[in-house]
């Protein structure tokens, strides 16, 4: 699971008001290199909750992202490289996503988060 995906998912348990961002518990993290596409990064930037991304990256051992970011930073190749790496190349392979309100854990196995709810959570 890429951090891009983490940035979109929220806990949808009945009664939870703010299920985003999910806290990450990592057991296994892998890195997969992919080509950098500056246009895509510039496009997606405005849709990313930056603080959630930089915190998630840090919790997985990548502390290179600034705590805050603004659009003008996209002109820097160095910044793009770090943004690209955090968003698309770091994968949570095994672990869990934790609902920030209830502490309920959603397991991540073979890179796939299991967001299925129990009957009493719907």
């Amino acid at each position, binding site marked *: 699971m890429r951090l891009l995906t983490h*940035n*979109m998912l929220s806990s949808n348990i009945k009664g939870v008001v703010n299920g985003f961002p999910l806290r990450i518990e990592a057991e296994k993290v892998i890195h997969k290199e992919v080509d950098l596409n500056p246009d895509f990064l510039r496009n997606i930037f405005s849709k990313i909750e930056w603080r959630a991304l930089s915190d998630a990256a840090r919790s997985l051992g990548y502390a290179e992202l600034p705590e805050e970011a603004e659009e003008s930073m996209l002109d820097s190749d160095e910044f793009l490289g770090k943004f690209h790496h955090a968003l698309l190349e770091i994968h949570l392979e095994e672990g869990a996503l934790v609902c920030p309100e209830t502490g309920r854990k959603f397991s991540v196995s073979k890179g796939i988060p299991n967001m299925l709810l129990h009957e009493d959570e719907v």
Partner: protein
Amino acid sequence: MKLKQLESLLGNLQQFSNPKVELEQYPTGPHIASRMLYMAENSYGDVTEKVVADFGCGCGTLGAAAALMGAEQVFGIDVDSESLEMATANAEDLELDIEFVQCDIRNLGWRGSSVDTVVMNPPFGTRRKGADMEFLCAALKIASGAVYSLHKTSTRDHIKRAALRDFGAKTAEVLCELRFDVPQLYKFHKKKEVDVAVDLWRFEPKD
């Protein structure tokens, strides 16, 4: 990518070995999947360099087709873990980077407007009434650009009304009518192969 090439690549994908009737798991054949994504890109520019989500992805055929057509990021979402395993293997075979999430579409917690296009071959709602509508409703909430979906031609008026009136779609258009070959997968199928008329729809969510 040419249509023929797309269809032939999709033809190599594994399909359900034990389809689950309660989920109405019918494979989306390479013929339909390739035409759906080819049209989405070449007539509307809804795929290349876009973020595409495949709802109820099953073995991942539509998502793979989107990735092959140059989608920048593809998400495949399904409730069934066996389907996701197969979809993962299919994506790996084609060397495609697809992100999978296990979730019931009805309870999907998805933030923001990152997904441009949703493509889906939802359950037709013949086994569990309304399943097709739940997919459509969720897709129109999450897509910011367009939704492509297959529905039985016999439900055309109903789909149009629900999309425009209940789910707030700005447009709802049938792009073409296709024949969906449902092979004899389940015991309750009496005939060897059933030919179902389906519409390929394109919806635009409201701004």
